[in-house]
């Protein structure tokens, strides 16, 4: 037991002395969180991107709630520095201005855009709500100004994702209420319009921070910081790096001769393997806690309930360590662990929602994503970010612990067939 502990501490120390490992464990997730935070405008309130007065031309052919809301986004205080919008009625002329490099992008809001998003009374009556064609907003970008055009595009994308959020939740709940006979189609249209107005009126203080409005039981909207999603997403992705790094060190100790040397000391192989696993666990937990501390300190990010965060971190690291062991048990050389580990890190990162919110992925991916510690843990961190506590985490924690347990058993069986002694 003591030796297991000592071997784990030794591995923790070695990991934190390895520059390359530190880059991946701490620097990469931190910098990526920062970068994604900038892209999504989390810091736009005070961060200066160095780009100002991007010319953009807006053609609003919709002239209803949503079209106006989008046009208004570009005239808000926050964007006054960043963009310089002009308005036009002529889509062709606007495109021409882009082609002539007069402006960075043209935003064309087609007629009927609002209608396509917020269903009217007629369409509800006809029962074809789900058949609604979604009319696309066009961002006609200037290829010679990729950065500026990219910023304009991301502003529109953000707006759209907010509309999308509102539409999906609004539509399903309205539909449900109609189906259960709680409201009439007439009332439904009213509700839809209100939703549109909410969107239109909201671009006030934090127009650009994506806020997921999750309505709690008593109808109060809890604000959710987008970084509370990005930061754990990145941390969890690079947690997968750490566990494969730890796994690789098991095979590396074999090739560098320290494992055989351990085996001729009065230490049995269970203690040694246990120590290695404990080392992976310790390193992963240290990594997560440092990242949580750093993002709290530097980004004023609120991770939520402290006990919940710690327990969730431990469960997530446990589940991830299981994967690290499985990779190690399957690989033959340290280099193989490295490459399989990197592949799994990226795949799990994408499937587990580190880059794209899981909700936006196809349903079958959402199902497969359940094998990743990332998806479960991210789910837990989102719950905590929205104000949940440990008691709300029973599903992700149970899943992560069972995952770890099953993977450990599998890798122990596989390790049994593997000769850790001979080169």
């Amino acid at each position: 037991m003591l030796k297991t502990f000592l071997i784990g501490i030794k591995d923790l120390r070695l990991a934190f002395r390895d520059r390359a490992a530190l880059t991946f464990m701490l620097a990469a997730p931190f910098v990526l969180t920062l970068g994604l935070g900038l892209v999504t405008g989390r810091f736009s309130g005070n961060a200066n991107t160095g780009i100002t007065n991007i010319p953009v031309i807006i053609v609003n052919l919709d002239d209803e709630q949503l079209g106006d809301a989008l046009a208004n986004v570009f005239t808000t205080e926050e964007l006054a520095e960043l963009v310089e919008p002009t308005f036009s009625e002529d889509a062709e002329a606007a495109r021409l201005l882009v082609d002539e490099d007069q402006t960075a992008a043209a935003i064309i809001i087609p007629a009927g855009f609002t209608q396509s998003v917020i269903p009217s009374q007629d369409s509800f009556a006809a029962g074809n709500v789900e058949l609604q064609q979604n009319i696309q907003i066009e961002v006609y970008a200037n290829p010679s100004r990729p950065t500026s055009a990219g910023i304009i595009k991301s502003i529109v994308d953000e707006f759209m994702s907010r509309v999308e959020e509102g539409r999906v939740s609004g539509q399903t709940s309205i539909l449900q209420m109609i189906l259960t006979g709680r409201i009439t189609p007439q009332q439904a249209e009213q509700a839809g319009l209100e939703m549109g107005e909410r969107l239109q009126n909201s671009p006030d203080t934090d127009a650009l921070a994506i806020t997921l409005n999750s309505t709690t039981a008593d109808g109060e909207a809890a604000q959710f910081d987008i970084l509370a999603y990005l930061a754990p997403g990145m941390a969890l992705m690079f947690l997968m790096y750490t566990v494969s790094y730890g796994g690789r060190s098991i095979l590396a100790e074999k090739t560098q001769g320290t494992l055989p040397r351990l085996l001729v000391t009065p230490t049995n192989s269970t203690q040694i393997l246990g120590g290695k696993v404990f080392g992976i666990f310790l390193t992963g937990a240290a990594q997560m806690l440092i990242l949580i501390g750093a993002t709290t300190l530097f980004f004023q990010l609120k991770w939520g309930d402290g006990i919940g965060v710690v327990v969730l971190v431990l469960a997530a690291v446990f589940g991830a360590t299981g994967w690290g062991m499985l990779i190690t048990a399957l690989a033959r050389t340290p280099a193989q662990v490295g490459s399989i580990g990197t592949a799994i890190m990226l795949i799990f990162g994408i499937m587990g929602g580190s880059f794209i919110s899981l909700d936006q992925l196809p349903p079958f991916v959402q199902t497969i994503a359940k094998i990743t510690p990332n998806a479960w843990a991210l789910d837990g961190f989102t719950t905590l970010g929205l104000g949940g506590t440990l008691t709300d985490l029973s599903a992700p924690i149970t899943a992560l612990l069972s995952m770890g347990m099953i993977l450990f058993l599998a890798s122990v069986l596989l390790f049994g067939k593997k000769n850790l002694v001979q080169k």
Partner: protein
Amino acid sequence: MTSILQVQNLSKNYGEFTAVKGITFDIKQGEIFSLLGPNGAGKTTTISMLSTLYAPTSGDAIVDGHSVTKDPMGVRNVIGVVPQDLALYEDLTARENLIFWGQMYGLSGQPLKNRVDEVLGQIGLMDKAKDRVKTYSGGMKRRVNIGVGLLHKPKVLFMDEPTVGIDPQSRRAILDTVKDLNKQGMTVLYTTHYMEEAEELSNRVGIIDHGDLIAIGTQKELTQQVGETETLILHISENDDPAALATAFKGIKEVLEANVINHEISVITPSAKDVLASVVSKANERGIKIHSIDIREPNLEAVFLHLTGRALRD
């Protein structure tokens, strides 16, 4: 003297290949015993079985009363192992390495600290103890590698070619350390393919070749097997062909063996002064200039040559 290590018919197969072929020998308490043999002779395989890393295919060995097959933990407590290849954590300092390995031998607290200081002094690395091992020279790493094997004051120390690939100064230091340890009462099993090391260090030598222990005894006993012989070592120019000359030497009546070792020709004969003239004239016939000739008393090299017909070093 009582024996502390008894090797009984020990064998090891790697698949079809037999690396160690049923060797039997004893090591007495307090002696330095050398296993001398060329590359691939089975030295490391033997040490690996004696240190309980590999299970023997057959046979057994008893170390201080513990069987390597039946009581490996008992064996591990009384042995120290210095592996042929460095086995250290390069990102830890020398002191941290020693502390970690000491902990694996069950040491802790103040006794561990004291012992680590002692060992650092012994291997002469006190002033470098705070540097990471990866910043060390090859010779310094070797010394740390040895230090790890000494921490728990083992009764028997296994050293597998501890001087391979280092500068003469470090080698000197290591050989002196081995002698010191032995003076303090440690029994040492030392493997090498350097005849000089075996000659300098050992009370007794076992010669191992192709997995067989082909001779065992004190240096004197072994050299007597070769009979009353002397060895001439001829140094010739790089450009000349030593093999042809060696073959020519075999034609001389008094020459027992003539072999090429590292561009030198070694000639074994009952009497050096009797063959000297013929050797020189053979060289002259071929227009080969002899730079120098050494005459040596019978040595382990000659014994190996005598037993196998091959040179110890290739």
